């Protein structure tokens, strides 16, 4: 940066922003100081110019308020018909976002960006619809009045006395590609107002009377002009940054704003926003949760959440830190994030408390070192109520009464002990009472107890007795020490108790999280993981749960079948998608898309976003305390990590399967090429010998050669048949055509194929004549037998017997093909059914497909196949064919 070259990171961020912007539609804002300055008119004129240039312009929403000249401009512009929404019996007209998206114009005109949609619309606010249009790549023209800007909202309220509720986040306006100020001097505007050319909503007329005062209009105009000027400045800075103009190249500034429960915090945030804008610096709004924070009443905690939310809307990054000392946490965070300026509010503590306890500002300034600390007065801009809120009363009057009662009780005990103990020892008894009160009643009552104890001790036990008078001045020192010790003990006890409570609460959260992660760690498979995560979430947060995962098209789809499943409404899918793409929580209870019916949190793992978690708690305010959201985020990240683990395992498994497939393919290629070439070589050899020598060979030799050709061709045929069957099995194209068949017949057909080869062998058949018909695919069953018989022939000496037997029983017919060969090597009984596996005993040919195919066919029939060595030597292959159904009966009587 010293050389004046743009910071590469910053430049990259800008390039990314530009790229994102190029895909998005462009937003042009017609900006005005007040209603009636002619924004809509200017916007429509600009739209007509675009149309004249051949741009596909559509009017999405324009309210002409019956003004003739504006209506004239609408003529010739296509209009998206409004959507009719019924709300409490009234028919409201609303901008139809879906129709506009479906129409897909190049440019759409949508008036009144700050408009609040009728209930039941997809988005709560119109600006959200505009953002969606922009995301869809559609250019948008829109109008905004200065009072609708979120960051100026309070200023406008103070200037005009009218609180505007419809606001637009500054970030939306800041992202506008163009901003056109539509300006009209206040006198002209008032003139138009008198002529009735300014539309004023009927209900607001009374307020409008006050609003359209010249003083107000001048102030609003100034605000609008300043805002526009700021924007021009920012554009200038951007330009300079792009072109690395040195002089104004800002050092990387980063603002940290500390907010607390004070009602001024909102103002602090707005002031900081303006400051950050002028500096062109990113800003972070931090809240530090200290033990004291837990004692705050709900309203104040609410206010902190509101302030943080406001900061987010204004474009700040928000964080919640937690620690014992606010200033330490802030400084540590500031250093970690390279913050250059810390902004704090003027301390609310009174002078004496500051002297006694020290002020946060003082400690901040002391420890800030190179960081600038800005102190902004809460009521710098006046108008706000000056009184600081009273310290929260955690304990009610009853607690104080009980504290007094405890002191009374302690006094009674002390009175009883008085005759036996030195009065000074009775102080210990009182201190015991103070500790007891501090334990269960908190700071205020225990302080009261300390004071009352001193008073009671003085009254009862210090001479002269039963008066507050003190005869010996040294007792005054005793009282002072007793009071200080009492107060310190009460303070320490309270703090200890708070710390213990906080620890217990954290312990509970951690325990819940630990319980889930432990269970997740013991689980395999995506579905099971999600099921467990959803169950824990539902239990801990009392909520319905949905998990959305990207489908094949990248669109999120809810994972079905979870515990306490949340039905994701179609309108919410957009919210979830946004969450997925932006890796930020959104929806119910957040500042982003609060119109959604559930809260959506991204499932961010170490490398990628894996999906979105949706929760809809029974109590819609359940996720307002920031710690709850943090807790939810912790659960989400645990879930995401578990998911990632499962996904990685799955991918690793797939890679393994892929490698296995690759190995099989190589094995297939080598065996097929070997097994195809061997018979081909034999055939070619025999045929060429016959061709070359012809009549020189004697008849038996010629015959032998010809037999070779024929046998090898047969072998080739069987190999091809097996390859075909294997392909069919693997591709799932194998379909059984079952019918009722006699096994005897199938065995006969299979043996028939080997008539030539089996001439010299004895084949022993043991097929009982009462074997029932069995439901099988006869062609495939024959193939099984052909493979088994072929196998037996190949692996046994030429003259040894082959035995085929079958028997019925146990719901199946068992078929056995046995031989008297070398048998199966121990341990190979299963492996011989693997594809391309060749037994280690005497395999001469074959790709090792036959048994794998046979097993596949038997399995398809619902049976199983196995092999064993026979005790008397040789191998036995057996398979079962289930006979679950009884064969159909034969109707007609038939006698000889």
């Amino acid at each position, binding site marked *: 940066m010293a050389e004046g070259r743009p910071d590469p990171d910053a430049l990259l961020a800008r390039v990314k922003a530009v790229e994102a912007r190029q895909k998005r539609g462009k937003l042009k804002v017609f900006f005005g100081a007040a209603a009636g300055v002619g924004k809509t008119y200017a916007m429509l004129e600009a739209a007509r110019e675009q149309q004249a240039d051949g741009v596909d312009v559509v009017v999405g929403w324009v309210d002409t308020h019956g003004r003739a000249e504006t209506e004239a401009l609408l003529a010739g512009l296509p209009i998206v018909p409004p959507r009719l929404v019924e709300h409490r019996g009234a028919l409201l007209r609303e901008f139809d976002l879906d129709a506009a998206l479906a129409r897909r114009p190049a440019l759409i005109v949508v008036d009144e960006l700050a408009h609040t949609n009728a209930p039941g619309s997809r988005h709560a606010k119109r600006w959200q619809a505009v953002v969606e249009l922009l995301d869809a790549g559609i250019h948008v023209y829109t109008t905004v009045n200065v009072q609708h800007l979120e960051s100026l909202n309070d200023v406008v309220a103070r200037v005009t006395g009218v609180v505007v509720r419809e606001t637009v986040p500054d970030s939306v306006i800041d992202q506008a590609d163009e901003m056109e100020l539509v300006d009209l001097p206040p006198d002209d505007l008032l003139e138009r107002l008198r002529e009735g050319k300014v539309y004023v909503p009927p209900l607001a007329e009374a307020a409008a009377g006050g609003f359209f005062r010249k003083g107000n209009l001048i102030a609003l105009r100034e605000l609008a002009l300043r805002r526009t000027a700021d924007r021009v400045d920012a554009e200038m800075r951007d330009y300079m940054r792009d072109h690395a103009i040195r002089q104004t190249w800002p050092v990387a500034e980063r603002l940290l704003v500390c907010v607390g429960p004070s009602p001024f915090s909102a103002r602090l945030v707005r002031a900081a926003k303006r400051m950050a804008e002028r500096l062109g610096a990113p800003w972070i709004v931090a809240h530090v949760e200290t033990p004291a924070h837990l004692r705050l009443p709900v309203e104040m905690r609410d206010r902190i959440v509101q302030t943080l939310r406001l900061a987010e809307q204004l474009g700040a990054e928000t964080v919640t830190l937690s620690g014992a000392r606010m200033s330490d946490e802030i400084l540590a965070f500031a250093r970690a994030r390279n913050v250059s300026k810390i902004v704090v509010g003027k301390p609310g503590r009174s002078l004496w408390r500051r002297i006694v306890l020290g002020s946060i500002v003082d400690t901040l300034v002391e420890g800030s070192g190179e960081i600038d600390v800005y102190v902004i007065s809460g009521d710098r801009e006046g108008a706000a109520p000056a009184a600081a809120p009273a310290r929260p009363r955690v304990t009610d009057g009853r607690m104080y009464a009980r504290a007094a009662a405890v002191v009374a009780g302690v006094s009674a005990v002390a009175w009883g002990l008085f005759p036996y103990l030195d009065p000074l020892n009775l102080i210990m008894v009182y201190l015991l009472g103070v500790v007891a009160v501090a334990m269960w009643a908190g700071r205020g009552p225990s302080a009261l107890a300390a004071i009352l104890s001193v008073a009671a001790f003085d009254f009862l036990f210090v001479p002269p007795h039963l008066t507050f008078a003190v005869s010996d001045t040294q007792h005054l020192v005793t009282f002072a020490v007793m009071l200080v010790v009492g107060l310190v003990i009460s303070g320490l006890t309270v703090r200890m108790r708070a710390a213990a409570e906080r620890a217990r609460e954290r312990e509970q959260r951690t325990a819940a999280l630990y319980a889930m992660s432990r269970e997740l760690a013991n689980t395999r498979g995506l579905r099971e993981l999600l099921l467990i995560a959803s169950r824990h979430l539902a239990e801990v947060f009392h909520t319905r749960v949905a998990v959305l995962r990207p489908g094949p098209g990248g669109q999120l789809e809810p994972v079905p079948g979870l515990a306490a499943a949340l039905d994701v409404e179609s309108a919410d899918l957009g919210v979830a998608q946004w969450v997925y793409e932006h890796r930020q929580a959104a929806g119910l209870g957040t500042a982003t898309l609060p119109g959604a019916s559930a809260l959506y949190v991204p499932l961010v793992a170490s490398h990628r976003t894996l999906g979105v978690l949706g929760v809809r708690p029974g109590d819609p305010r359940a996720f307002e305390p920031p710690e709850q959201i943090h807790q939810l985020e912790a659960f989400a990240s645990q879930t995401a990590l578990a998911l990632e683990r499962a996904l990685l395992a799955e991918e690793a498994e797939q890679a393994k399967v892929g490698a296995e497939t690759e190995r099989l393919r190589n094995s297939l290629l080598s065996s097929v090429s070997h097994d195809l070439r061997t018979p081909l070589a034999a055939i070619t050899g025999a045929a060429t010998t016959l061709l070359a020598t012809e009549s020189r060979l004697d008849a038996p030799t010629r015959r032998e050669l010809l037999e070779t050709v*024929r046998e090898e*061709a047969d072998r080739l*045929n069987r190999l091809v*048949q097996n390859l*075909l*069957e294997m392909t069919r099995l693997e591709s799932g194209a194998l379909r059984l*055509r079952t*019918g*009722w*068949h*006699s096994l*005897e*017949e*199938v*065995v*006969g*057909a299979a*043996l*028939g194929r080997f008539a030539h080869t089996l001439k010299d062998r004895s*084949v022993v*058949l043991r*097929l009982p*004549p009462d074997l029932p*018909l069995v439901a099988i695919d*006869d*062609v495939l*069953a*024959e193939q099984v037998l052909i493979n088994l018989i072929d196998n037996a022939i190949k692996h046994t000496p030429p003259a040894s017997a082959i035995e*085929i037997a079958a028997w019925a029983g146990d719901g199946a017919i068992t078929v056995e093909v046995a031989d008297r060969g070398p048998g199966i090597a121990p341990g190979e009984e299963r492996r011989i059914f693997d594809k391309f596996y060749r037994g280690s005993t005497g395999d001469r040919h074959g790709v090792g497909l036959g048994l794998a195919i046979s097993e596949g066919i038997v399995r398809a029939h619902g049976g199983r196949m196995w092999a064993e060595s026979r005790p008397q030597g040789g191998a036995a292959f057996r398979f079962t064919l289930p006979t679950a159904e009884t*064969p*159909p009966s*034969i109707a*007609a009587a*038939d*006698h*000889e």
Partner: protein
Amino acid sequence: MSEPTSGGAGDPEAAGRPAPVVVLIEDETPIRRFLRVTIASEGYRLHEAGSGADGLLEVAMRQPDLVILDLGLPDMDGLEVIRRLREWTAVPILVLSARGQERDKIAALDAGADDYVSKPFGAGELLARMRVALRHLAHLGRDGGDSVFAVGDLRVDLRLRQVQVAGVEVHLTPIEYKLLTALVRHAGRVLTHRQLLKEVWGPSHVEQAHYVRVYMAQLRRKIEAEPARPRYLLSEPGVGYRLRAE
């Protein structure tokens, strides 16, 4: 469309009978070359066609005694060729088809083909099928045909309704006898399960395939020496049955 190949030692023309004319419809040249030699060596007059369209033309022109048709033709489905031929001629059609395509075979037989040979096939097997088909054609010319069928040890006298195995009379039930005579009438040719059911049990029973299986098993037990290794009543898995004719 080539010139007929003829001649050879066993030429029936030499014995005063006209040599049977065979049209071969097959697109694969190596198979045509092998069949040309095989068929001509048996004294048939062979005409070849390399496509379905040529084949139909050749059959119309030559009026053959037998058509050998490959089901996998480049220009039209073999089944379509059978249907077009059956529109005007009863000439025996012998189909060439690959193993594993049993459904195609049944469809061809249902469409009117007389028999089939599975590729790859040996010359002997093809010639035997051809002889059966031609003999069947010869039977059509005469009334009734032979009343006695004999193969190996099996002898069936249709006139006397008598069945003998190795000279010993075998007693059959009426259905068994009907089943056997249906096979005898088409001896050497394949009969699909449906065809058998229709002939023996009537058209309403064509779906009851298990009837055939049960009675065939009974018949084998009475006729065959070793029912699981039959010599006469052969099963063609997926298609039907065939009675050995020679």
